[in-house]
């Protein structure tokens, strides 16, 4: 790790001001992604502002029947929350399909949403990578691409968003709440939170420097049957090759998002409208325009099979 100074923020305002005013300053929450990357010197912050002790950890009912999850609520706390287990089951399922018991105790809701990608070339600092070193090139193109994205990519980056929780938040129509350095607050729809790479793959989310995520809110529970199915190389404790989050209603309609296939949780509303026609129609529409490589084209038929499995269970 490169040397850095450390402070524990006394308030959200102080945390925002500390990061906004110092070049190279970063928030640290659970630290499970940031410290990992700092050890590889992929991230080299000069100053860390520890936000873990801010009062942003609660999970509260909203007057409209929804739920407000504090940015610092741990993955374990969210998955074990009685209303999440009962009414937002897809979220509990997605969280416990990710990482490990130890990591979920530390990982926070905001940190999880902001975790960086798992492209093997992003981690290999001797090779070019447009995310790590803007403009240096993409080593994955022409390389080993098995785990990488098949849709939503650009000629500058084909990394996938590796998260599980975010895929469930996408089918739940979650909103990310933030506070900006000027004190104003804003609400960002989860579908707009993870940016596609385009020609600036190093810009991964719309947050300004110092902008602090304070909460994630969920609208009223959608009802229906909730499923999260993750296909991975080991039965436990591995990132998704393909995952699918589904909320299925009794009339056969529902919502579908895929993980492990795109730079963001991949939900196409026009595609999920085809649910009554079956998984092949949904996947054909959701992956229209996909540009897989020879090494990861298998993800599209795999996504169809994962969805078919979930639908057959959901109706049983």
């Amino acid at each position, binding site marked *: 790790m490169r040397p850095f100074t*450390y402070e524990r923020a006394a308030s959200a305002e102080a945390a925002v001001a500390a990061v906004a005013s110092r070049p190279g300053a970063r928030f640290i929450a659970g630290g499970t992604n940031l410290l990992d990357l700092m050890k590889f010197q992929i991230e080299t912050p000069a100053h860390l502002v520890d936000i873990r002790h801010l009062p942003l950890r609660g999970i509260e009912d909203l007057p409209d029947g929804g739920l407000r999850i504090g940015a610092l609520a741990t993955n374990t706390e969210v998955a074990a929350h009685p209303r999440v287990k009962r009414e937002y089951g897809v979220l509990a399922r997605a969280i*416990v399909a990710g990482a490990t018991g*130890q990591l979920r105790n530390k990982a926070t809701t905001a940190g999880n949403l902001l975790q960086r990608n798992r492209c093997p070339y992003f981690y290999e600092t001797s090779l070019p990578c447009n995310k790590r070193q803007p403009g240096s090139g993409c080593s994955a193109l022409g390389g080993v691409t098995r785990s990488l994205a098949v849709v939503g990519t650009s000629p500058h980056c084909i990394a996938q968003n590796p998260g599980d929780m975010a895929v469930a938040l996408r089918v739940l129509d979650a909103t990310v709440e933030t506070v900006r350095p000027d004190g104003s607050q804003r609400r960002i729809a989860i579908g707009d939170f993870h940016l596609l790479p385009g020609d600036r793959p190093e810009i991964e989310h719309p947050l300004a420097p110092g902008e602090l995520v304070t909460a994630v809110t969920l609208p009223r529970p959608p009802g229906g049957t909730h499923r999260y199915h993750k296909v991975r190389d080991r039965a436990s404790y591995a990132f998704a090759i393909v995952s699918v989050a589904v909320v299925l209603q009794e009339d056969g309609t529902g919502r579908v998002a895929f993980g492990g296939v795109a730079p963001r949780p991949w939900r196409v509303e026009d595609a999920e409208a085809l649910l009554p026609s079956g998984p092949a129609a949904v996947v054909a529409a959701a992956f229209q325009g996909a540009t897989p490589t020879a090494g990861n084209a298998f993800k599209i038929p795999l996504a169809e099979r994962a969805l078919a499995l979930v639908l057959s269970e959901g109706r049983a």
Partner: protein
Amino acid sequence: MARAQAAGTMGSVVVALTVNDERRRLDLDSRVTLLDALREHLHLTGTKKGCDHGHCGACTVLVNGVRINACLSLAAMHDGDVVTTIEGLGRPDRLHPVQAAFIAHDAFQCGYCTPGQICSAVAVLAEVEAGVPSHATGDLTAPVTLDTSELRERMSANICRCGAYSNIAEAVADVAGRS
């Protein structure tokens, strides 16, 4: 209690921890992880370093009663926290029930992963009690029973290079069955 603070020199921090019931105060480089603070500065070498990246579970300790990977946390982040390591769970003459079960079931070979396995198992029992679901949980709203698939899933982040898994599972199941 001393708050961790950026002192005059670049990246030094003062950290006050309660480790295995003892108050400890450390003057550290801000980069020191909780794992290195325990091993290199407090000489509590029971907690092991395997990967240093959250992959192996050898560094599992309990912080405020909850299991975490000590390698993916800065010591400074734990100022004011209560840490329990394998040394604090039991003593040779007064073993923790999970420690005793590991001996009874011959749940280790080289022993490198064992402190992490035991700390993890102690926490798993508490997580089950608290209704924390896992990937192996069937009905999310029913109380969790620690059957074989639940146990294996919940212990899956503790890698054993010697492959003592079946005896580890038996040891933990033994303690779970008694409680």
